[in-house]
């Protein structure tokens, strides 16, 4: 077993899940490689220290208090049903798309109206300018 393989098996060793066949090779490598030994000892020491963390026991009368809570009315906070949430999202998307399309259409109509109005007011416009302007509008460009 090399250093990389040994370090990959630290977790299995800690959780006592290292196959019996692999254990001698693991132990041998750790005993012979100072770097891996140091890493392994640090890894194992932290895990050992974690186990020492103490936590409080339930206070006196815990079971009694729990039984009393069985009589409390059930309070379930209202939430949107999952299906409704998707439906609401779909409605929002459709409204946004329709709104965007209507704004775009409105702008197009306004620009078209402006072109015709300019043509009517300005004699210097020739047919070519009108065609180019309309062509730009068709391509979605601005005048």
């Amino acid at each position: 077993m090399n250093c990389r393989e040994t370090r990959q098996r630290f977790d299995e060793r800690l959780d006592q899940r290292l196959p019996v066949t692999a254990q001698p090779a693991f132990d041998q490598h750790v005993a012979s490689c100072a770097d891996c030994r140091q890493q392994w000892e640090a890894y194992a020491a932290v895990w050992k220290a974690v186990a020492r963390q103490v936590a409080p026991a339930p206070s006196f009368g815990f079971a009694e208090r729990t039984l009393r809570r069985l009589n409390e009315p059930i309070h379930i906070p209202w939430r949107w049903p999952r299906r409704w949430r998707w439906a609401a999202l779909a409605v929002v998307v459709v409204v946004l798309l329709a709104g965007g399309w209507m704004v775009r259409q409105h702008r197009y109509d306004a620009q078209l109206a402006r072109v015709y109005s300019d043509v009517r007011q300005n004699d210097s416009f020739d047919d070519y300018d009108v065609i180019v302007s309309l062509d730009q509008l068709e391509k979605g460009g601005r005048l």
Partner: protein
Amino acid sequence: MTANDADAALMLRVKEGDRDAFRELVERHQRSVVQTIYRAVGDAWEAEDLAQRVFVQVYRSARRYRPTAKFTTWLFTIVHNTVLNEHRRRRRHAAESLEALQRPATGNEGGGWQPADPHTADPAQAAAHRELQDQIGEAIQALPVQQRMAVILCRFEGHSYEEIAASLHCTVPAVKSLLHRARVTLKERLQPFLSGGV
């Protein structure tokens, strides 16, 4: 009769609405549930409140219980869901958890309640022990909630990878990955405090 058989038998009685069986079930598991939640949320008062909610949930879901899986796996699935909900609630109401942090220690809360190691008569050593306890608690608290639960169930409850996977709704390789990442983070965080020897 194994412990699991006894739990399953009690649950079948709870299904029928037997409150004595429920009380027995609570008494059997109250310690592990309260301590698991305490380690996950870091507040003793809140841990008791959440543990009671877990047991109330067990009572109300008893009709859906099928004794096919181990009772503790089912119980810790509820514990995990409760901790996750609490985690989400805390994120939504950051101010509330700040308030909890500022709550004066009542002698039964994180930091204040921890007994000194009975083997260390020396006050300096006791203080160092308490300091280490605080650091370990903080390091566990700093882990992402899934990693934290995996560490707690593996290290303190001695659950197998398969049981942890069932409780956390994930696969066994995912549990291994959660534990590995948690250990690397804990090592980085705690090694400076352990260099003097544990």
